[in-house]
């Protein structure tokens, strides 16, 4: 029996290691080529003379940090706007009864269905007309399509999990509606708030289509800026790898942070056993 368990364990681990190699290999490959010079790019695989030239070229000799800053501003503000509008919306969808409620909820979700490429061209023309083209406001606005539905739908579930009696109890305890919301409800939805915000941030950060079409030279996000290393004559794979590695950093860091918060269930067992 013991031997069997051991065997099963070994098989499990071997399979997991194979999967880990499979999943991490592209990232590893990207790191690898970021240390290769253009000359060694195609004639070496694992054995080559490592160089920091690509890092020097991307980080010090181009405006990479400006793109990084643009990405940060647009994504962060997009998430904040989504939270300001989305949290009350999620609360309303969870707790109030009104006509066409489910239709409205579905409409919000359906923003995520439309292929971005489908709407981006008309948006481009509209943005040109109304002066939102190549502005922070314009990008933040259009990013709501990505971030808002996510936040509303995740938080709606959290609000629905909170028994309405908790709100009633807090009101009877002498709290006004706002205080009930801030002091009693917000702590309960915090895990959802954090994970949905981080996820929304990552989605916004990774977006490529919208900034490609709706921003020009004023605002360039890292995803769009990575294209700069595709010159017409040569492709600087090494530099692209550096840019890509850096632009994936926030996603990796936040993904690691989320893991902790993805554990739902704080409000489970809130009122019963």
């Amino acid at each position, binding site marked *: 029996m013991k031997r069997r368990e051991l065997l099963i364990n070994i098989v499990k681990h071997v399979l997991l290691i194979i999967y880990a190699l499979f999943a991490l290999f592209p990232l590893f490959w990207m790191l690898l080529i970021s240390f290769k010079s253009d000359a060694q790019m195609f004639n070496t695989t694992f054995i080559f003379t490592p160089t920091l030239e690509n890092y020097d070229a991307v980080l010090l000799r181009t405006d990479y940090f400006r793109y990084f800053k643009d990405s940060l501003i647009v994504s962060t503000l997009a998430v904040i706007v989504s939270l300001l509008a989305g949290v009350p919306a999620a609360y309303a969808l969870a707790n109030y009864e009104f006509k066409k409620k489910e239709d409205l909820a579905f409409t919000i979700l359906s923003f995520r269905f439309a292929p971005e490429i489908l709407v981006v061209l008309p948006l481009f023309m509209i943005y040109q007309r109304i002066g939102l083209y190549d502005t922070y406001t314009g990008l933040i606005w259009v990013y709501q399509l990505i971030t808002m539905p996510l936040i509303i739908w995740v938080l709606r579930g959290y609000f629905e999990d909170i*028994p309405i*009696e*908790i709100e*009633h*109890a*807090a*009101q*009877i*305890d*002498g*709290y*006004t509606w706002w*205080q009930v919301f801030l002091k*009693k409800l917000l*702590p*309960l939805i915090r895990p959802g708030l954090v994970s949905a915000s981080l996820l929304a941030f990552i989605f916004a950060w990774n977006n490529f289509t919208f900034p490609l079409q709706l921003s020009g030279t004023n605002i360039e996000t890292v995803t769009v800026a990575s294209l700069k290393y595709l010159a017409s004559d040569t492709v600087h794979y090494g530099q692209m790898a550096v840019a890509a590695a850096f632009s994936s950093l926030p996603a990796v860091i936040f993904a690691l942070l989320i893991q902790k918060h993805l554990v739902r269930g*704080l*409000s489970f*067992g*809130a*009122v*019963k*056993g």
Partner: protein
Amino acid sequence: MAQVEIINVTKRFGKTTALDNVNLDIKDNEFFVLFGPAGAGKTTLLNTIAGIYLPEEGMVKFDGEVMNQVDASHRNVAMVFENYALYPNQTVYENIASPLRSPLYKQDNETIDREVRRVASLLRIDGLLDRLPHQISNGQKQRVAIGRAIIRTPRVLLMDEPLAHLDAKLRNYMRSELKEMQSMFESTVIYVTHDYLEAISLGDRIAIIKEGKIVQVGTRDEIYYTPRNEFVAALVGEPEINIIDGTLVKENGTSYIKLEMKEELVPLPDNHPLTKTLCEYDTNEFHVGFRPQSIDYTFEYKEGYLKGSVYNFESLGNKAVLTVKVGDTFLRTLAPYDLRVQLDIDIYIDAPITKGLFFDSQTTELIGSYDDAKVNGNGTQE
């Protein structure tokens, strides 16, 4: 401490009417029980008093002051919820302290600490103050919920089936605890339950509610001995009352009642106002209710007793319910728990007519009873 008046309150949810023209007058410092089956509107009424729901019609008054325009936080009521509604992310200490931390009833930290510890020791949960709600048992949660309610002195303390989710043993224990605590609540208590034992053991007065309407308000004796109709009679009392068809027969100037399971006629007492009422009633058909404990039984033949057979014997721990089949009628009676009995054996029973409650067979309203000693006040009708 407040006297609560509910005047013509109607509450609707969409097309369903949850409360239908409810009128109640609850006295200051009274322990008032709202008792009824599930879905009768008990919790809705409680929420209406608390200010969580606004009634479509009618008024809620505290000490004569109309509360309709006052929101829940300003009514100075406290409530113990059926599911306790503790704040899951806050410790027991913070849960109990919550009302005193709110802007409305704000106290300094020293007072809060003293009060929380006073209430906790009163409820014997002082050892749990640092725990989170999910780390304590249901019975303890329930006490925390009570603690949160009584830490300040509310005008009205509302309790919504606080014992419903406890196991039987704990429920019995907490029921007697609540009875002891009653004196220290020092406020008007309105208590909702669907459990008959809780209702009669706790309530100074009991209101029976059915489908959003108040059926009867009275003391435990009033609702037990003079139930307003068959619904109340069936709801109050365990095991349930036996309701039997009876026909009034007049022969040679004497009135008899013929019960459905009995061949012979049972003479009705002469010169009793009830006999007169029954004779003058516009129908001969009545329903007669016999409480299980007023049905006598014996296993030996006895003169005047009816022969039947034992249909079922159900032990309830300290007593047992014996179901007897007489003809096509089933009658429940009380038996000692240690009675050894075989099914289908012969049994002789007697249901003395003087113990019967007479109901109108159409409206199911109570007409009266011969058991004069018990009728010491008619249940008020509202």
